């Protein structure tokens, strides 16, 4: 996998940094933001770079708050975002553990 630079941003590093945040279950595509980046022969789910904005669409982990998520994602992703604004879309939340 070669480095995929989109508008000066290493998109794989950015995706990995976002996915490593404890409040993030996964990066997801589909509604509402339809965030995905199409590269030669592959697609990066949940990230779109457009103009001066990086959009990251995630599934929130149950019992994490949106505030925690935003702080984690911004601090992890901002150094990699090359000065782009980082918008966060919380598209879904994981199902809580049943039986409790």
């Amino acid at each position, binding site marked *: 996998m070669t480095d995929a630079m989109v508008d000066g941003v290493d998109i794989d590093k950015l995706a990995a940094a976002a996915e490593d945040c404890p409040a993030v279950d996964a990066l997801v595509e589909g*509604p*509402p*933001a339809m965030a995905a980046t199409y590269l030669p022969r592959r697609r990066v789910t949940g990230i779109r770079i457009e103009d001066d*904005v*990086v959009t990251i669409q995630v599934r*929130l982990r149950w*019992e*994490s*708050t*949106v*505030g925690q998520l*935003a702080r984690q994602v*911004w601090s992890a992703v*901002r150094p990699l975002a090359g*000065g782009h*604004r*980082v*918008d*966060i*879309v*919380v*598209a*879904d*939340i994981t*199902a*809580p553990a049943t039986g409790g």
Partner: protein
Amino acid sequence: MRTTQPTTTPRMESPLAEASRVLPEPDYLGDVVISERVVAKIASQAVYETPRAGAAAPRMFGSVMPGAGHMGIRASDLAARPKTSAQIDSSVVYVDMAISVRWPESLADVTERIRDTVEDRIKAWTGLTVARVRISVTDLVA
């Protein structure tokens, strides 16, 4: 000259104002958008955690189908998550849910408890303000 003064002054200022707007604000990091599905799931779980309430009976043409359980269609179930929808209008949330309540619990008591949990949890987890939780009790389960 006096009549033109007020119009020329804003025009002189406007290029500067535009330029300052282009500069990034240091504490603005970006937008956070929360999907309605997230809010609906949080609300739905609050009912699931209440042993006194659960998913509602299936509906047809807007009303409950009596005896649907006997026809093999999913009946009201206290141990299932109710159908829930949410609308978000900027930072305000409207939640709609159809639930069943265990007989003979007080409907006022059960719905108030659910409403409080839904409001508290959505506020705490998403920062959104819950403006309305509309609960339709469509069935009583013995």
